[in-house]
């Protein structure tokens, strides 16, 4: 994997040079247009200053801004165990130094993105719609794609490119708008007196540059973005060794009619499928952040021999009908075959079950509490519910709200820190003797209240917070 990271570094340096010179020239010409003597260098200074401010903001709070804009919420493993398991698996497969933080976006539209400036400190966000629609293999494919972005340092790279692009666009916009409002006639008269021909020439060059530079930078940015998507697909296939999972996930995401509200032009490129261009298949390939979905699926499905990066490059050549190095040369050196594996047990959920699960998941993300009444009905209690008990809407039985959940409700939004599964503290488990058959609550040794439901039949219960086991005697 290191070879891909270093290829990425070299490319980012190249990008830095091209986009940076764009920025410097833009600053120079705009400065010179206003004051031909020495103004160019002041212009460069101002351009550099704007770039630096944007860089600092995006470096220190880019990921939290992004997560906030998309409406992602941090969740605990009890909301969706499978998602946490899959992320943990991909962490092991990719050899990441730490488990990425997991977020769920409260939206029925299936999509996902990853963020964070370092692999040690990154996050993966998926929508509730994605979780309900995909089976385990497909979810693994999507998470593997996002993990690949983290592993290949794509996020750093794209943030960096995005800031460069942003500065160029911002400076051009300010300049073009200032021309619009200052009124052409008086400016040309004023300038022609003190600086003559020079300023007029610089003005023309500056206007041309201010119009062309953002377009050029944008195309460059998009070309890089598309390439990184191919590379992430290839790495995902190699990590999971099951390209069909990602292929059918992409197919399902592309087919879904819902719109993702939290996405806009600035964040669209970060998702696994561009949420704004999803239904515009005819869109010109030059102006999109992602390669056409049909093509990505076809390449993944053409991986019949193995899942190595070399196999992906071969499949790419076959589908596109032309040779285009989509994988950096350094990634193709490693010719170790990566055998494919078979599909896992995949149960397709019915439409009704999907809808129900989606509703439950979105409520769980929003801090709802679920109680199972003795009559079998699942009661959904909103987070702002203050009373001690609630009447079952079906049988009318009063259900006490366990204090464990009240404690959780008090801190909605607070993240309950949980140890990594499998690393639960050892030691002899404590015991708890049941008083009756209804809802009961007792305190775990770590202090967290644990609730027992009327249906609980087991011999022991695991604390959701610290992972300690408590033996239950009835």
């Amino acid at each position, binding site marked *: 994997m290191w070879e891909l990271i270093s290829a990425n570094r070299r490319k980012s340096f190249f990008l830095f040079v091209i986009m940076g010179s764009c920025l410097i020239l833009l600053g120079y010409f705009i400065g010179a247009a206003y004051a031909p003597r020495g103004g160019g260098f002041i212009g460069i200074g101002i351009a550099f200053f704007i770039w630096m401010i944007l860089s600092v903001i995006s470096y220190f709070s880019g990921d939290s801004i992004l997560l906030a804009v998309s409406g992602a919420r941090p969740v605990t493993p009890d909301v969706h*165990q*499978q998602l946490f*398991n*899959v992320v*943990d*698996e991909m962490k*092991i*497969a990719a*050899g990441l130094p730490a488990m990425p933080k997991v977020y769920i976006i409260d939206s029925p539209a299936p999509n996902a993105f990853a963020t964070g400036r370092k692999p040690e400190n990154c996050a993966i966000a998926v929508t509730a719609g994605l979780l309900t629609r995909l089976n*385990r293999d497909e979810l*693994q494919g999507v998470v593997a794609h996002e993990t690949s972005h983290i592993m290949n340092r794509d996020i750093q790279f794209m943030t960096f490119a995005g800031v460069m692009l942003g500065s160029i666009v911002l400076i051009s916009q300010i300049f073009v708008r200032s021309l619009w409002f200052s009124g052409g006639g008086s400016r040309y008269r004023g300038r022609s007196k003190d600086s003559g021909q020079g300023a007029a020439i610089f003005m023309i060059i500056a206007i041309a540059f201010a119009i062309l530079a953002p377009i050029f930078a944008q195309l460059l940015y998009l070309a890089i973005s598309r390439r990184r998507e191919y590379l992430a697909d290839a790495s995902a296939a190699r990590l999971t060794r099951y390209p069909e999972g990602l292929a059918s996930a992409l197919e399902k995401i592309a087919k879904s009619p819902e719109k993702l509200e939290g996405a806009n032009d600035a964040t669209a490129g970060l998702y696994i499928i561009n949420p704004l261009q999803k239904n515009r298949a005819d869109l010109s390939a030059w102006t999109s952040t992602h390669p056409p979905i049909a093509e990505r699926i076809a390449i993944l499905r053409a991986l*019949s*021999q193995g899942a190595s990066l070399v196999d992906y490059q071969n499949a790419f050549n076959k589908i596109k009908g032309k040779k285009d190095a989509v994988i950096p040369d350094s990634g193709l050196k490693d010719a170790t075959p990566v*055998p*494919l*594996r*078979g599909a*896992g*047990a995949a149960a397709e959920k019915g439409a009704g079950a999907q809808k129900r699960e989606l509703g439950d998941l979105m409520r769980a993300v929003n801090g709802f509490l679920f109680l199972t009444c003795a009559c079998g009905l699942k009661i959904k209690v909103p987070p702002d519910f203050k009373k001690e008990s609630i009447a079952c809407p079906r049988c009318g039985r009063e259900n006490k709200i366990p204090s464990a959940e009240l404690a959780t409700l008090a801190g909605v939004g607070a993240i309950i820190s949980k140890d990594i*599964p*499998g*690393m639960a503290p050892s030691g002899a488990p404590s015991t708890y003797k049941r008083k009756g058959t209804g809802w009961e609550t007792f305190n775990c040794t770590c202090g967290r209240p644990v609730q027992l439901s009327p249906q609980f039949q*087991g*011999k022991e219960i695991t604390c959701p917070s610290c992972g300690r086991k408590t033996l239950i005697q009835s």
Partner: protein
Amino acid sequence: MVTLVVVLAVIFIIIFYLIGLFNSLVRLRNQVKNAWSQIDVQLKRRHDLIPNLVETAKGYVKHERGTLEAITEARSRAMGAGSVGDKAKAEGALTDAISKFFVVVENYPDLKANQNFLALQEELTSTENKIAFSRQAYNDQVLYFNNRIQMFPSNMIAGMFGFQQSEFFELEDKAERQAPKVDFN
């Protein structure tokens, strides 16, 4: 005098080089150990999950006693295995037993609707995957370490200080072997 200094300098360089070689071997051996402990965590987790699985399923699959017993037996054999090679074989047998059971489960809709069972199945599947992924990492480390032990000049140091080759962790992965090779060209 000059020759003495040169000879001493050469000797020092050689000594420092040998120390460097020794240290790199120690580092590699520790990396192998670390990679192994990553697998071990997952294997232990699987051993912990199986009693729960058997307990949950017992009431539902009365006619499949044999399948459940096979799992329990394979588990105790895996827990008793000593060397890496033995362990790999025993864990492979356990993987087979579990996957056989999950095929059988398809005939028991009641069991498949049990929330406890579903959660256990998810945990086991995930542990199974984690074992596979950490096995890849472990085998990569072992390959690198063994290469260093066999190759000149680090093989001399390895022989002198008794560095032993590590064993690969090869599960009998049926799905892997049976992956069909299809070529439409």
